[in-house]
């Protein structure tokens, strides 16, 4: 280490260690905080400005969707699972639909598989652009935030043109998709994709040259791959640690066996490499959408949908923009699912993100914590922890209701 580096490190140590906070050094981050789009609480223990420990406490956006799915039939369930997430709503419905389809012997038309790929990739572009804009917001670079979100409107317009909705697409259905593509859709897609690929090149230039962005993201949030593997991250967070894992190539669904994604990895595993990785993924998605729209086969987009699904258990997964999205569905032959279990990418990533924060300063919290592109609304679940007895268990709605009635009878 050179003298200059040593001097700078000493300066950093003095400048961050000078500030002494409340004795226990605890700073609440959330549940309501400008950096978080959704309610979630992180206890941050500080020493000066240095972070010693981050304790996530989840559950503020729990909506009981898994239980509510048990009261709906197979078609109604598709629209409810979409409401889990406002950003990757198509990934949720796609994962659910594919899991249900694997219980049946149904043939999915080839055209429908291509359309599913197009929508999934458009959604990936829009989700990654949303995250990139928010990185600008979290680092205080509001101009970048506004520019990227303006460009994101182009993708949302395309999605609206194809599916009829901007956010909750209501497009996937068992055995295919609900509507065919509008006529001459390539006339809208091609110029929009050209515009976006130009803009992505421009943003890549900004991110790799703008000094304030570089010092805020380079080397920030580094975690050693050994630790990371133990904590099981998924999606871009895993890929930026150098692991080539992507459901689209590992277990192809939709038309990913014919239009093969080029899975990018990085070895830096910091926030800056996440930025570059996501921009690369957008470029790859643009390529795939253009390829799919030129080689799309003709034919049906869905076949007749059965009322009842045969008895059995099924597991399915898709690569949502944030990583592997996992569904488990149990059917007992009726017109309703008996149990649906959902594991969203944010739940898999949250421990890695808190691990990434250790040793950094409070100023890094928004960038690192949200570097995994969190979606807390997707993630929350109800787990009861009895601290006194050290027990933990999960509870369903009926038990909770009975417990409430018993508690009031006893304590009134």
């Amino acid at each position, binding site marked *: 280490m050179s003298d200059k580096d040593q001097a*700078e490190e000493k*300066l*950093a140590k003095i*400048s*961050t260690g*000078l*500030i*002494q*906070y*409340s004795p226990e050094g*605890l*700073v*609440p981050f959330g549940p309501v*905080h*400008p*950096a978080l789009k959704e309610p979630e609480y992180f206890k941050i223990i500080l020493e000066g*400005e240095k972070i010693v420990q981050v304790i996530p406490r989840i559950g503020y956006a729990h909506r009981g969707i898994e239980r509510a799915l048990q009261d709906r039939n197979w078609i109604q369930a598709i629209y409810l699972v979409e409401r889990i997430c406002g950003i990757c709503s198509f990934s949720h419905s796609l994962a659910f639909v594919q899991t249900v389809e694997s219980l049946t012997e149904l043939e999915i038309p080839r055209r429908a598989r291509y359309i599913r790929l197009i929508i999934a990739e458009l959604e990936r572009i829009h989700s990654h652009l949303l995250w990139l804009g928010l990185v*600008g*917001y*979290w*680092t*205080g*670079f*509001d*101009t*970048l*935030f*506004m*520019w990227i979100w*303006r460009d994101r409107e182009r993708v949302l317009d395309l999605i609206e043109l194809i599916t009829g909705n901007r956010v909750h697409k209501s497009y996937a259905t068992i055995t295919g998709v609900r509507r065919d593509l509008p006529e001459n859709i390539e006339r809208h897609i091609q110029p929009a994709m050209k515009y976006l690929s130009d803009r992505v090149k421009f943003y890549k230039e900004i991110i790799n040259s*703008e000094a*304030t*962005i570089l*010092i*805020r993201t380079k080397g920030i949030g580094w975690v050693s791959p050994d630790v990371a593997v133990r904590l099981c991250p998924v999606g871009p967070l895993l890929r930026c640690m150098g692991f080539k894992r992507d459901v689209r190539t590992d277990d192809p669904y939709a038309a990913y066996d014919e239009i093969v994604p080029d899975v990018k990895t990085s070895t830096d595993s910091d926030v800056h490499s996440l930025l570059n990785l996501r921009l690369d993924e957008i470029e790859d998605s643009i390529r795939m959408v253009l390829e799919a729209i030129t080689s799309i086969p003709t034919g049906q987009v869905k076949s007749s949908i059965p009322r009842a699904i045969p008895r059995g258990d099924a597991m399915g997964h898709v690569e949502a923009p944030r990583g592997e999205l996992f569904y488990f569905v149990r059917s007992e032959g009726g017109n309703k699912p008996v149990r649906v279990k959902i594991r969203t990418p944010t739940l898999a990533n949250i421990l890695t993100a808190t691990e990434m924060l250790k040793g950094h*300063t*409070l*100023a*890094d*919290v*928004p960038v690192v914590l949200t570097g995994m592109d969190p979606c807390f609304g997707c993630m929350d679940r109800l787990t009861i922890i009895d601290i006194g007895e050290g027990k933990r268990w999960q509870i369903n709605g009926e038990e909770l209701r009975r417990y409430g009635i018993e508690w009031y009878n006893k304590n009134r």
Partner: protein
Amino acid sequence: MINWIFQLLVFPGLTFFVWIAFAFEWLERKTAAKIQSRVGPLTAGPKGFLQPVADYFKLIFKEEIIPRNSDKFVFLFGPPLYFSVPAIGAAFIPILGEKGVLSHSYDLLFILFIMAFSVLMASMLGYAAGGRYSTISIGRLVLQYTSYEVPLILSILAPALLARGLSLSKIVSSQISHWHVFYAPISFAVFLIVSLAELEKPPFDIPSAKTEIVAGWMTEFSGRPLAYIKLTKNLNYVFLSSLATTLFLGGPLLPIDVQDEFLKTILFLLVFLIKTFSVGFLIFIIKSALARIKIEQATSLLWVITTPLSFLQLLLIVLFR
């Protein structure tokens, strides 16, 4: 005497500066909106010009929430005192002639004192409000102040050296043929950087970084105290821009000689306003194109880069003048 009080309180003193402060906020919001391809304030007044005024009066009539563990006296009466700091400072700025309303022969030192006092008031307010976000913010604010005070004083010293005097009127009158910005460009740049730090604007908006510590030391304030604080921040903006104009850009002086007294005053005012708004505009553009840095990066930037640069400028002036 009445004339003097009128000058101090109405024109070119307090009321005049408050209106420029509102105009500055409007220009800031409009510029940022144009750069970010938005429309910005639109409905209140022509092109939304009265939006800052409307926001101010809205805050005045809002409920005041006083935290239980706050120091109530400082919490309620601190903000007007905080407001008075740049308001007094503004009275030293020469606008209609070579002398300000409160001008005296060592007023540059008083200006430096006022800038330090402004930070002291801010930290007092933050501590009075209590709360963890405020505490962190005050730590960062004081740390940032200790880092930028030295470059600030050194950069202000350059025009004082060039003018051989410590009064603003002497600095202004020495620029009648050449502006100091041509002899001390490095000091001017350092002064702009330091202004960003004093105003808590990107890349130095560390004490009020909203994605980290909500609103920093202003988090607990609401209603009238918050209205005073917001107005003070805008007034600080005007104060620093007009100070840059006075120190480096020749203040209100004209390149030509005008005989008619009334016409001369009007021209002085116009020249001063154009220069001040240009400096403000420059600051708006710089702040729109940058991301926030971290406190240790700010400390090292201000100590390692700007301080030696301002020394270099002073050395150059001493050697060549």
